[in-house]
């Protein structure tokens, strides 16, 4: 199973990024092969629709699950359409979240926020 985690830095000791759409990197971790890789989030600086594009990246990476502190409506729509499960992170440590996920302790994220689109000026 391939899981994605938004991360502030390109290393396993970094913390989870608080933003899904605008995270600088994603950690893609394969729970079967234990292989992990960091990919750039090319949409981090886009002016709008970052969540949609970031979700598209995870779809293209063929991930099965996402662990994130929060997720916006549009991104959640994309992920749901692709049957990618969204789990809520339990701490800021990437390692702890992977361990919790593997031992089945993470819950699905049920609060999908309406997005931060109040920048129309």
């Amino acid at each position: 199973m391939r899981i994605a985690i938004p991360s502030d830095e390109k290393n396993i000791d970094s913390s989870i990024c608080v933003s899904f759409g605008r995270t600088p990197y994603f950690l893609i971790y394969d729970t079967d092969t234990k292989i992990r890789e960091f990919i750039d989030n090319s949409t981090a600086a886009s002016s709008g629709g970052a969540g949609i594009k970031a979700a598209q990246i995870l779809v293209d990476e063929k991930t099965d699950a996402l662990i994130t502190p929060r997720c916006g409506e549009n991104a959640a729509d994309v992920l749901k359409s692709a049957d990618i499960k969204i789990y809520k992170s339990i701490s800021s440590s990437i390692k702890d979240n992977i361990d919790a996920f593997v031992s089945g302790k993470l819950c699905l994220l049920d609060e999908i926020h309406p997005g931060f689109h109040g920048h129309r000026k």
Partner: protein
Amino acid sequence: MRIAVLSGKGGTGKTLVSVNLAVVAKKSIYIDCDVEEPNGHLFFKPMVTEEKEISMQIPKVDEAICNGCRKCVDFCKFNALAYIKGKIIVFDDVCHSCGGCMILCPQKAISGRNKSIGKIRAGSSDGVVIYTGILNTGEASGVPIIKELLSGIESEHNKTIFIDCPPGSACIVMESIKDADYCILVAEPTLFGVHNLNMVYELVKLFNKPFGAVLNKCLEGENPAEKFCIEKDIRILGKIPFDRQLGTLNSNAKIAVKENKKYEEQFSTLLDAIIKEAPYETATNT
């Protein structure tokens, strides 16, 4: 002649200036381009004679023709398209209706479908013709409404057109001033006011528009906005004092020039100054 009234932030007095100028100019047209929160109609209370729905084109993908090349997804600057499980998903609220995906699609699988984004109302009040643009809450861009507002206006010879712009200096303001013959920059006498004045100052310079400034809420003592105008050699068309009575009239949605001779004189003087400055002699104050 088209006169656009703009400012870098809200609450500086764009509507106060444009509404009162439109009334003293008598044969005039007032166009409210502040489509996110149009408020000129609160002063004019016009009899609405016409209402028109405005829509824009949102992409519609024919799944039978789409071959999943994803050119449209990669092209969209606003990230309004996603490609999931062999299907394009369109995010209506994120789409800015640029039409790029429709042009780009090699399969010609994308056509347009109309989506209502707001409306335009026309009416009149005491000889002033009033057009109001109204954008539905949550829509990405009011530009199509402003385009429609300004393209439909017949520039009658003896009528001065006042364009009440949205605040700021973004696309929506550019669309509002694009065809203006003259721009009035309304500014507040604060450092924050200067920052915002500078934004619109740079914009009108970029557009090569003739312009001048109106200093609103002027107090005794130092006025940073005035200092800025002097430094940048910006023509000051007039100063409106910080005046409790004017503020009260305005906050009660009264048109100051109709209520008090003093304000009628103030705004007539301002209009004269604008007409002297503006490039054409079409506007009259008779």
